[in-house]
């Protein structure tokens, strides 16, 4: 054994109490390597020690769920013995110090999670948050992240089909980069990350191991400071070409039948993959790190165990099938080396050229991390929130306000971004970026899937519980607006420092909101990611629980897009307008502060609104559907005009203020257009679902007319909306 560690726990991100617990469990002091292993395995990133007890109440079961949380990614059934595997993951801290590689390796990591389940990745979505785009540093981060996504995603040949981007000061020093990947597989090909059967070989495949990304998991579990730039070596470097080869080789290996289990080497590299695989199979694993292919000289056992070099996997084949693995990987020009074996003693045993450097019970590392119930305290700022003073935000020019909203970066078209992403490769993209939800056909079948990510962080800041619930509802609404049936979600939970009782209160309440909405809408959570410590010297980010959702279209013919199709079509609003302006983008425009009371949410109404639109889609009466969100009804209608350059004549008589009618962000509202012939059929559907609705106007001409308040040329609006981001860079 190497020298004993003394007071080394802090360096490994552990507390004194945790160190004492380790000594207690081991009944001795840990070695340097062992302490490093505990440091990453018991980091928040790997152990969820601060979130587990809150997350356990998330609904994870449902008819469609084939694999819930606990594996590399969850899986849902889509019929015909086919399934979809999907998951969202964050790469916030790496992207804050090295935006290009941070974002690129974020994609690489989540893709590996999907193909280790046996699924071929068929789509990626990105949920991004940045500070104010006028800030030079923010522009650098924004451009770097987009370039990183573009470089990695395009090269590997997986289309980037959707996502969302918000800009707000709270993300200035700590941007969010959450990536959702979605894969398609047959039930028969489902793989697991389990090590079983004493004597079966353990192999490392893919790239050689270097010193990059050492302790990235610990880096992710700390706040960003002025000195974080010094952590740049903790950011890994991605190689999409190598990942493409690894993807093809791994899928070929899974099909070969030679496999017991396979796991991505992500956070905490060889350490977490071996401990987790052993723990899942109630087995032990013994590896000799001298056998791991390395690309640098004189790497210590500590470095090899904790490296986060990208594009590597840990594989357990059946004994005697080592050459099957080698042949497949050799064909793709990749390493495949036996580095150890599965044992039946439950221990993770690390040898260095035969000498033991670490020996720890695998389940101790993977499952016995401490679980904390952190202190909560209702944030002070919530005590002073009150309705906004309407006098201060009166509009004297509604047309101008609408133009300003359409050219604000959060609402403006993200074309500048998504034109840098290949969103068409694999030729399944029926509806791509810029829509409510992306739609992909399932090749050879009549069905399709719909994909979206959603979260309004401001809502979650001002009311974490309702904000969490709204994120789920909006995701479901986007799926419904695209013609799909919501199936399940993955959650990317981004928060500040969990040791701060006010932050923990935000976290707990946001999750509670997600739980209630998921139960109501019957969309279970099949996996996700927690990212704490999203803070910079200026403070914590807004709580941002991003919801990634997958929906199913029974027939591709049921697809719906947001754009108005034909002059003369009738425009309806399903849902109701409420006299509220709290938390809206309109407030940001008027007083440069998003404040006030978050829009009401009635989950029963939400459900009925979605059911109504779904029924109408099934009856084939919906020609367009668009969810009402940031910017309110006025922006929603404008966005529906743009694609085909069609105008509208809208006339609404509501006993609420003009500002709230145009720009209020009341929930559970969907704007649809229908052919005049379908009027009775449509109204019958709404009545039978006892849902509020109103006819608000018609599609006509090339001008946007809303009551007597707004009169604008659609072409002018579109050009402002489409070029705003490029202009501000």
């Amino acid at each position, binding site marked *: 054994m190497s020298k004993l560690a003394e007071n080394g726990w802090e360096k490994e991100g552990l507390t004194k109490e945790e160190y004492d617990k380790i000594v207690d469990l081991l009944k001795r002091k840990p070695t340097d390597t062992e302490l490093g292993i505990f440091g990453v395995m018991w980091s928040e990133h790997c152990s969820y020690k601060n979130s587990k007890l809150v997350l356990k109440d998330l609904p994870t079961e449902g008819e469609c769920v084939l694999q819930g949380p606990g594996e590399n990614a969850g899986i849902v059934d889509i019929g015909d013995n086919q399934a979809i595997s999907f998951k969202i993951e964050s790469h916030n801290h790496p992207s804050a110090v090295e935006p290009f590689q941070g974002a690129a390796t974020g994609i690489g990591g989540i893709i590996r999670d999907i193909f280790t389940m046996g699924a071929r990745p068929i789509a990626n979505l990105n949920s991004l948050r940045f500070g104010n785009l006028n800030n030079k540093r923010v522009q650098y981060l924004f451009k770097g992240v987009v370039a990183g996504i573009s*470089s990695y995603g395009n090269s590997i040949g997986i289309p980037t089909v959707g996502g969302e981007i918000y800009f707000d000061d709270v993300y200035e020093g700590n941007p969010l980069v959450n990536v959702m990947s979605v894969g398609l597989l047959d039930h028969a090909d489902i793989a697991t990350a389990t090590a079983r059967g004493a004597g079966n070989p353990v192999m490392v495949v893919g790239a050689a191991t270097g010193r990059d990304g050492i302790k990235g998991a610990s880096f992710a579990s700390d706040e960003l400071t002025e000195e974080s730039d010094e952590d740049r070596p903790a950011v890994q470097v991605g190689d999409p070409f190598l990942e493409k080869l690894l993807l093809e080789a791994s899928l070929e290996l899974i099909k070969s039948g030679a496999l017991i289990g396979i796991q991505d080497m992500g956070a905490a590299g060889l350490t977490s993959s071996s401990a987790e695989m052993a723990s899942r199979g109630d087995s032990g694993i013994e590896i000799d790190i001298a056998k791991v292919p390395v690309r640098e000289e004189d790497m210590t056992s500590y470095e090899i165990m904790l490296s986060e070099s990208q594009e590597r996997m840990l594989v357990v084949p059946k004994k005697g099938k080592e050459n099957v693995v080698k042949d497949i990987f050799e064909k793709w020009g990749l390493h495949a080396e036996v580095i150890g074996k599965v044992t039946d003693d439950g221990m993770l045993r690390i040898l260095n050229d035969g000498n033991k450097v670490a020996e720890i019970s695998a389940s101790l590392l993977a499952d016995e991390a401490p679980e904390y119930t952190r202190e909560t305290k209702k944030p002070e700022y919530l005590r002073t929130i009150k309705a906004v003073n309407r006098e201060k935000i009166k509009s004297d020019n509604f047309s101008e306000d609408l133009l300003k909203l359409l050219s604000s970066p959060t609402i403006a078209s993200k074309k500048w971004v998504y034109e840098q992403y290949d969103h068409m490769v694999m030729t399944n993209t029926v509806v791509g970026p810029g829509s409510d939800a992306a739609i992909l056909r399932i090749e050879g079948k009549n069905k399709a899937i719909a994909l979206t990510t959603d979260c309004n962080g401001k809502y979650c800041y001002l009311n974490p519980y309702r904000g969490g619930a709204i994120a789920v509802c909006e995701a479901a609404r986007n799926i419904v607006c695209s013609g799909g049936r919501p199936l399940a979600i993955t959650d990317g939970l981004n928060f500040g420092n969990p040791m701060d009782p006010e932050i923990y209160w935000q976290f707990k309440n946001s999750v509670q909101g997600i739980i209630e909405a998921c139960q109501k809408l019957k969309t279970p959570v099949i996996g996700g990611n927690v990212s704490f410590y999203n803070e910079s010297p200026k403070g914590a980010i807004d709580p941002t629980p991003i919801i990634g959702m997958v929906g199913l279209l029974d027939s591709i013919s049921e697809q719906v897009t947001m754009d108005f199709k034909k002059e003369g079509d009738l425009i309806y609003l399903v849902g109701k307008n409420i006299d509220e302006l709290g938390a809206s983008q309109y407030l940001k425009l008027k007083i440069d502060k998003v404040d006030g009371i978050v829009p009401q949410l009635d989950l029963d109404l939400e459900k009925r609104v979605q059911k109504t639109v779904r029924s109408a889609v099934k009856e084939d009466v919906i020609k367009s559907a668009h969810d009402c969100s940031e910017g309110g009804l006025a922006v929603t209608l404008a966005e529906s005009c743009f694609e085909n350059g069609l105008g509208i004549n809208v006339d609404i008589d509501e006993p609420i203020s003009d500002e709230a009618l145009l720009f209020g962000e009341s929930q559970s509202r969907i704007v649809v257009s229908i052919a005049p012939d379908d009027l009775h059929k449509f109204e019958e559907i709404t009545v039978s679902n006892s849902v509020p609705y109103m006819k608000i106007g018609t599609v006509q001409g090339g001008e946007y007319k809303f009551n007597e308040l707004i009169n604008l040329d659609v072409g002018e609006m579109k050009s402002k909306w489409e070029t705003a981001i490029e202009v501000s860079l």
Partner: protein
Amino acid sequence: MKAGVVTFPGSNCDHDVYDVLSKIFSFDTDLIWHQKRHLNNYDLLVLPGGFSYGDYLRSGAIARFARIMDSVIDFALAGGLVLGICNGFQILLESNLLPGAMKVNDNLKFVCKNVSLEVNNNKTTFTNHYREKEIIEMPVAHGEGNYYIDKKGLNSLIDNNQIVLRYANQSENPNGSVENIAGISNKKGNILGLMPHPERCSEDIISPGRRDGYRLFSSIVANLKAGGEQIG
């Protein structure tokens, strides 16, 4: 009809074009591994889009040394039909099967969108189902599509009617290519390289109302069925 699609490490549109050839046009289609030496009797070879060998040195620069390329070059020089799409076009340039070179897009960014193209020469095996000067639409998706050729070479292309597709005008040109060039052929007309992706707009479901890529493949099929005689 037999078609072969070469898979280089890093190719990522190989399956897309395979599907179009085999499912829509009923080609007996093979994916050909880059390490093979010999080709079967193909009527058409396709070098697909993607990032062969990561495109790390320069697009197509490493792929041209792949073991299969000697056979591809022999096939092309013997008059076999060769279609290079996107990365495939870049490989054809690097292999000197087509003249000119490819530079990084003039705005230095990858671009993926639909663009309007003008069919400049509809008298090739690949394009005779289009009308002359017809404006069509196809997607592009590339970071290095800025086609360049010197003055002399350009004159030769023009004199021999080798400019097959152009971006419809300057504002449709996504990369800054010389003369808005989007696709060129060799003098003989049996080799076509183009940046746009016809395989991404050959089916109504993913390209509603504008299957302009379909006719590129249907032109090839019609010519093969007519006995391999080149038109024009």
